[in-house]
């Protein structure tokens, strides 16, 4: 469906990273394997490898974000690339400059890669169709559609703790309707062959036809967490209370908050994940967020390695007329 044709070059190598959907299991695993190699770079005396020296990466953030932008920046620097940070508020573009014009101006500055975060679904995809052929696009989050690097760092974290995907039951809890993270996680988990992917949410936060993505839907949190190996909590945004989707944070926490009691329904060696930032007392109890099952802080450091892997894989494509050798 989306993205797989445009994400790969004609040799089947990753050219753009827009979505976890449509990529093969072996490609997802190679992202994880490359990330393992890059993970050790941060522990060295010189926290850099010269792989992308001389390349320029532009962070195009149409939606503000400190965490994601900084990890992409760190990843780029550890690969010795130069980084341009552009925080383009959407009002600037609505003042006249079209998205295409913005892109062409940046291309004239000889950027090799765009890391894009945008409020509209399909934006990264659109940008990938507009850029010159040598430029790679990495999706740092588009609307409610995808956040593929987040999903991959979560897969990396899961693999580090659980090794074998095929035995895992994973529950994703929270605002699935608006979550680009949830969609990317679901595609990645299913492609990597987990035993079962569950989503747990109130009716108002479940999108139509979601079963088509390959998930089991639960409205009861206690049942949904029974026997799972991985619990992925999603952030609940305050706007949802205003939009007639939920009555209050307290009620949400009562029904869907992750407390130690609820967590006890999962397997005793279950891990708790969260893409951050956490709303303590809304979707997750502090004791769980800081507890022994939580791998939330590790997710952050894994993010750098995974983003290094994705940047290196997309930039290191063979030029088309040389083709694969050896």
């Amino acid at each position, binding site marked *: 469906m989306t993205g797989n044709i445009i994400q790969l070059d004609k040799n089947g190598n990753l050219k753009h990273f827009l979505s976890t*959907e449509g990529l093969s299991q072996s490609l997802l695993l190679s992202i994880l394997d490359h990330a393992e190699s890059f993970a050790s770079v941060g522990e060295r005396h010189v926290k850099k490898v010269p792989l992308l020296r001389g390349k320029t990466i532009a962070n195009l953030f149409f939606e503000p974000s400190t965490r994601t932008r900084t990890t992409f920046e760190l990843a780029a620097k550890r690969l010795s690339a130069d980084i341009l940070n552009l925080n383009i508020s959407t009002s600037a573009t609505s003042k006249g400059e079209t998205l295409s014009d913005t892109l062409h101006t940046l291309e004239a500055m000889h950027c090799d890669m765009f890391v894009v975060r*945008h409020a*509209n*679904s399909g934006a990264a995809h659109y940008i990938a169709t507009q850029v010159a052929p040598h430029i790679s696009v990495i999706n740092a989050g588009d609307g409610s559609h995808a956040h593929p690097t987040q999903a991959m760092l979560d897969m990396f974290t899961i693999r580090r703790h659980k090794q074998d995907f095929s035995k895992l039951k994973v529950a994703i809890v929270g605002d699935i309707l608006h979550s680009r993270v949830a969609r990317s996680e679901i595609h990645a988990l299913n492609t990597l062959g987990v035993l079962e992917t569950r989503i747990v949410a109130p009716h108002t936060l479940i*999108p139509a*036809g979601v079963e*088509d993505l390959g998930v089991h839907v639960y409205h009861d949190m206690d049942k949904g967490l029974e026997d799972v190996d991985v619990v992925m909590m999603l952030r609940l945004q305050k706007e949802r209370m205003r939009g007639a989707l939920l009555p209050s944070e307290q009620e949400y926490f009562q029904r869907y908050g992750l407390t130690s009691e609820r967590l006890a329904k999962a397997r005793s060696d279950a891990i708790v994940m969260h893409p951050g930032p956490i709303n303590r007392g809304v979707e997750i109890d502090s004791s769980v967020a800081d507890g022994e099952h939580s791998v939330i802080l590790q997710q952050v450091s894994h993010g750098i390695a995974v983003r290094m892997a994705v940047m290196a894989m997309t930039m290191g494509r063979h030029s088309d007329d040389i083709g694969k050798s050896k």
Partner: protein
Amino acid sequence: MRISIKEGRLLDPANKLDAKQDLFIADGKIVGIKKKPDGFESDIQIDAKDSIVLPGLVDLCARLREPGFKHKGTFQSESLAASSSGITSICCPPDTNPIIDSPAVVEFINQRSRETGRINIYPLGALTRGLNSEHLAEMYLLKQAGCIGVSNALQPIDNAEILRRTFEYAHSCDLTIYLYAEDSSLKNNGVAHEGAITTRLGLPAIPESAETVAITRALLLAEQTNVRLHFCRVSSARGVKLIKDAQAQGLPVTADAAICNLHLTEMDIADYNSDCHLQPPLRSERDRAGLIAGINDGTISAVCSDHQPHDVDAKAAPFSLTEPGASTIEHLLPLMSHLANRKEIKFTEAISLLTYQPANILGIDKGTLGIGKDADVCILDPNLHQSVHKKNLLSAGKNSPFQGWELQGLVSHTLLNGKIVFDRNELK
């Protein structure tokens, strides 16, 4: 100018005519069918031996983009595109700029249509002033100026009391209301049909109930006020059923479907194809099949192009930021033939949906080939075929969702009031 069209298959569903016969035209009227009138000497003879001779088509909804949106299209470019597809009469909605809520704008449109001289334009007047959904427009004056009906175009009227009053007032002017039924709160800024596709693509979704709730509300008010109500561009199977039940009850309710919804579904959005960003949205295959069933059982009595040519920038953005609408006018007839070729509808039914049936809804004397009728005729060569490509489009709008489609049947000649206004041989 005396014209004879020789040996064509004359197809006029209004008069149940389907036979190989000659057609004779003089002084802008049809003066003979089959038998040449005494003393008739033709100035021009058109050989229609392997062609089908049809009444000039009536497009129930097309936007020519004048006045106000000339960067998207002009009377010149769009009427040529229409003519090339055998269309001789077009009804245009009031959302021009300025809006058709004053007689002066009606007069402007009539004048420009005369100047261009390729098609008859039948404008709809605004239902509310400035399409603001609050105050009644001067419907009586608009009717006097030449509007054949009233509409709020795509602007929703959410206040039921105001909706009721517009129905009552239009009824008092003996005007048909052309209503695009969509509840704006349920639509909730959606851009595509709510379902597995919007979930996968993460696009804001429009539930089916946005249409069905609005249709139900309108039907109940129509029942109360007795207004003639026409539903524009029904898109859901459920919506068709609601209208069918109302018709069975005897309510003066009609409906049309847009050509895109008869061929395409939500699946065609695929990789965020903004040419498939439409209003109403492309719905599921079940809905598409429901529309076809609605055509076959008579619930839907007209098919329109819903032509909305756009400039390149309007579609050059992430999906939800693009403007909805497709450029369809020059493919209306071939696409209807396509449905007939696939045996989804009969060919004569396809022609009915494009000729006398929309004319009846509009209340105009068009869409038939009778002696004494205006000589609006088109000649279709079923053996010509085309590949749809943006660069080949005559319309200024290249936003066609049918890019790459192979379509059978091209119009070779179109006549308006007995004058040849389109000849494919003269196209460069």
